[in-house]
């Protein structure tokens, strides 16, 4: 069976606003990346490393699969 190419979507922006309307700069500082990297993550232009994904889960008091989801491409 052939593998379909998948894209990763995330709820970072939604969770950021839910957690006291955190700014991108604040989130970037908490997970140890640049603000532009947070922007790229939210826009789906960059998938974070496992470490950053776990840090995000910690910041949002959530789990990695509640923040990120795999969507198969049509």
């Amino acid at each position: 069976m052939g593998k379909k190419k998948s894209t990763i979507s995330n709820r970072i922006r939604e969770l950021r606003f839910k957690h006291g309307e955190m700014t991108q700069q604040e989130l970037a500082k908490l997970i140890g990346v640049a603000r532009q990297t947070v922007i790229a993550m939210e826009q789906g232009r960059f998938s974070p490393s496992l470490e950053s994904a776990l840090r995000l889960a910690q910041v949002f008091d959530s789990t990695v699969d509640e923040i990120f989801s795999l969507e198969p491409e049509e």
Partner: protein
Amino acid sequence: MNAATSGQIIGTVLWLGSCAGLAACVVWQKGSLPLLREQGLALIALGLFALAPCTYLAMQVFRGMPSLVPGAVQFSGGLLLLAAAWRARKQRLDPEAIESTWVFRQKSAAVVLLALGMLIFSYFGSLGDVPAAEAPALFIDTIVLLIVVTIVGHIVVSVLHSPGDDLAAPRDERDRAVDLLSLRNAYYLLTAAFWTMPVIIIAQLPLLTALNIWFALLVAAEVVYYSSVIAYYRLGTG
């Protein structure tokens, strides 16, 4: 020594007075707050504006050869610093506003691409017209041009770059990912450059031609690297 005309002297004095008045307005706005970045930049810009006609006059009076070039350079520098002051003010008033989606490393890559483009144009474009004995001198001139354009371009980009947080920030995982992917793309051309060696030996090409082919492939690899950096930051790393 040559005399300056009375008109030039009066004009310069009036210009200096205007610059001093503007500088006084900038300093007066400071109040009790510490000198803000935009005010410092504006004062330096006004200083350069004030110097420009003085430099022209000094060259005319003391050297007898008036030249607009030093004054034009100072005036241009002043304009750039004024633009930087304006951006610093906007950044202070609205830190969340993102004026440019380009990170500093993208702009830096664009500067180097511009310099490489000038190198390609000036060196490879002139190679056919220059005798073989003068090729090393042309090469050195081109490298000097590359260095100067890169340095000046980076100064301009640094001064005008508005999100000040990422200028001094260390490389994060996205920067490393972009760098690795871009290096991989450039590596393919470098590999091709290596494999041209046996072809050149078999074809018994002249040494200068062989060196120029390798140099062209090296420059092409650099173009691929910096183009990839810009593209990966813009489009994503997948």
